[in-house]
């Protein structure tokens, strides 16, 4: 890489995750996320994108564990930190938005309290101040009448509103990195656009880097500056978004792009409506133990603009 690029916020190096020590399911994944950059991880179910995100947060659950590599966050290997120091980072410097807004909020606490908790835990604020900040946070994610909403319970809110609340919680402490794991998959399409726009806008304003995990190529294309394609636990290809869509290098990426349903299109098999990936990508072309195909970052001017 050239010297013009800023130091990455997150630098994942040869990350390996296994079920126990033996069975490796994520093989040598490396990628960088620059400050303020939105980085997309795309791939099928089970390709390892979510556990990559979770391992950065330090939220892997047994029997999954990191068995090799490093996760450098602001130059510091978080895998070497103690659990307490890592916990301090979570929610404060790095935050996460999950897929399911319906279950991600405590049903027995008000929205305002749940946002305020972030300020109490990470900023040591008193409840009164924290509550005021919570209302501000709700306002920033454009929840209408935030004062009132702060007093309502999660079940009184729609899915889109809840996801906005989740974003407010995640961005409450102005983290350097936001990991969004399929943030809009559970929402309907019209709400999706609004939520994505909100994430993009808030993160741009704060200079927050985003790791967007998704299987939705449309979402990736709209949101991300750079995209990594994952298949079977490997990062097979990494390019700038435009370059990736214009010129996919790995056969799997090509297959993924070809498998997108298009309005009114006929599929290869003719009868079914959806293309199976197996029909497009030969299995010997799938991820193997080869280095990630990457092209250097272009359009730097845009990234920093």
């Amino acid at each position, binding site marked *: 890489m050239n010297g013009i690029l800023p130091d990455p916020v997150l630098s994942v190096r040869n990350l390996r995750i296994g079920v126990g020590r033996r069975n490796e399911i994520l093989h040598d994944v490396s990628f960088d996320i620059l400050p303020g950059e939105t980085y997309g991880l795309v791939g099928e179910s089970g390709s390892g994108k979510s556990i990559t995100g979770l391992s950065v947060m330090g939220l892997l659950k047994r029997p999954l564990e990191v068995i090799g590599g490093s996760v450098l966050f602001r130059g510091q290997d978080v895998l070497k930190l103690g659990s307490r120091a890592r916990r301090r980072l979570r929610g404060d410097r790095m935050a996460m938005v999950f897929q399911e807004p319906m279950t991600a*909020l405590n049903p027995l606490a008000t929205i305002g309290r749940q946002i305020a908790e972030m300020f109490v835990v990470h900023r040591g604020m008193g409840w009164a101040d924290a509550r005021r900040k919570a209302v501000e946070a709700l306002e920033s994610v454009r929840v209408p009448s935030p004062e009132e909403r702060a007093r309502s319970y999660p079940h009184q809110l729609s899915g889109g509103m809840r996801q906005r609340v989740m974003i407010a919680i995640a961005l409450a402490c102005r983290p350097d990195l936001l990991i969004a794991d399929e943030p809009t998959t559970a929402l309907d399409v019209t709400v999706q656009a609004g939520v994505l726009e909100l994430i993009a806008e808030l993160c741009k304003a704060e200079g927050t880097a985003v790791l967007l995990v998704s299987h939705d190529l449309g979402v990736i294309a709209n949101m991300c500056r750079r995209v990594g394609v994952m298949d079977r636990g490997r990062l097979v290809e990494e390019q700038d978004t435009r370059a990736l869509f214009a010129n996919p290098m790995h056969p799997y990426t090509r297959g993924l792009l070809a498998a997108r349903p298009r309005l009114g299109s006929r599929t290869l098999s003719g009868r079914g409506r959806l293309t199976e990936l197996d029909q497009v990508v030969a299995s010997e072309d799938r991820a193997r133990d080869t280095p990630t195909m990457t092209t250097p970052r272009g359009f730097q001017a845009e990234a920093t603009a």
Partner: protein
Amino acid sequence: MRLRFNFVLGLALALLVVVAAISAGWIAPYDPVIDADLMNSEMPPSWEHWLGTDGQGRDVLSRILYGARVSLTVGLVSQLINSCIGTALGVSAGYFGGWWDDLVNGLTNVMLAIPSLVFALAIMAVLGPGLPSLLIALGLTNWSWTCRIARSSTLSLKNQGFVQAARSAGFSDTNIMRTQILPNILGPVLVIATLGIGGAVLAEAALSFLGVGIRPPQPSWGNMLTDARELIRTAPWASVFPGLAIFITVLGFNLLGDGLRDMLDPHMRTRKA
């Protein structure tokens, strides 16, 4: 939430006992210990002694009213101890898992295997009779059901999105257990506790009946039954009324617990509707 019949009836009975216990000092017509009139022993119920007198000429009604204090104290306090122990162990076991979970599970199974009354009897034998040792004995022997319920509820809550979200927000484990899990399992724990109060009242009566609970002459429903055992043919009122008091109390708290469960459990509600 619609009030259910068993809840209302249970609440009424429980309140009756609570009021009796609190106001025993004012409404009891005689002193339960000092007013022993040997000349008027084994008197059947009359206007002077509504529920009759026992073998030593003491007013049964007064002794039942004062006995309610003992029974309720034992029931409430020991069940509070049980709930605290059971919830703390159950939640932490379910949350942390691993060897701690195995240990707590093993302990719970051991507690379930030993008849709790026998265990309480053993503790009483060590500590000696009296109210404080009763509270300890019954408070340490009945937490296993609470523990099980708390553990299983925690296990299912642990994988809920909001607990995961709280972890990703950097909350500490104790904070997550306190703010995310505890409020969500309070319903079932409350139900078990209410049902347990009835059990504790019964256990107190049993221990006092066996002579290791409350020492005579202090009245407790259990030792009233002991005293009246030999008079069952000549003065049945001396044993029937304390028995009735136990019955009403246990019934009241059990109905209250049942009603609470029905009202807190949405599945039961939809099935009934």
